């Protein structure tokens, strides 16, 4: 999917089954990249407008929740005359399939992209078994 297609298809979270936010602002599911390395699972989420202090990353059992709040600063003395995107908060949940060492999770926010490294626990890492020549 191209970047623009991803943006155009930005989904709004289904708020019904979920707990509703107190703020009336829309909540979006951020575009994410998830990849697996031998030692970790890495989650990258695009959350433009979210600062490092307003993001929450939670791992509850195998469920990873990411939530980011946008600091929507109004532009004083200006009115919105043309809009292609809507400003809102971000929220998503993932089920992590591998066993994670919860104490070693690292999360960083840079240029509106959240980067979470979930290190696999020792037993979940692949062990190479030497095959002996008979």
């Amino acid at each position, binding site marked *: *999917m*191209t*970047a*623009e*297609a*991803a*943006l*155009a298809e930005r989904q709004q979270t289904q708020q019904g089954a979920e707990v509703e936010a107190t703020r009336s602002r829309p909540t979006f599911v951020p*575009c*994410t*990249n*998830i*990849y*697996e*390395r*031998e030692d970790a*699972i*890495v989650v*990258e*989420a*695009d*959350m*433009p*407008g*979210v*600062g490092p202090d307003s993001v929450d990353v939670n791992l509850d059992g195998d469920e990873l929740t990411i939530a980011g709040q946008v*600091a929507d600063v109004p*532009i004083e*003395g*200006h*009115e*919105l*005359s*043309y*809009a*292609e*995107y809507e400003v809102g908060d971000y929220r998503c949940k993932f089920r992590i399939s591998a066993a994670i060492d919860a104490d070693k999770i690292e999360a960083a*926010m*840079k*240029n*509106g*992209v959240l980067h979470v490294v979930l290190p696999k626990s020792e037993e979940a890492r692949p062990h190479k078994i030497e095959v002996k020549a008979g």
Partner: protein
Amino acid sequence: MAIQIRRRPSQQWDPWSEFRDFERAMNRIFGEGPRMQVEYPAINVWTGKDDVVLTAELPGIEPDDLDITVHGTMLTLRCSPKEQQRGDGETYHRRECRHEGFARSWLLPFEVDADKIEAKLENGVLRLTLPRSEASKPKKVEIQTT
């Protein structure tokens, strides 16, 4: 019977219509085809008395990767991000965001003072303040009485 002459309700003038038309024309030239889907990056435009503020969501983009130029009333935003190094043995579970390069141009409804343009990239959101040039500001015409 009095004939009432009523002016045809004119279409409301939209200073941004040209802005959109230009982009549509550019897409036609460069073979993007007629699509209604939002271009990347999506922008919002805020109009003030003496300037316009353009905001764009550009997650993952470094300030050095951005190139903003103004030529007359044409504003161009270009981005050529550095190639990201991906290690071996990485398998994607999902890949929805790609921080790729792009180029997008707009025709502004007035000339801007190129020296006073301010660009700020914060938390992946670009805020571009484009002050209207002195020459393009509306002038009030004094009516002389004899």
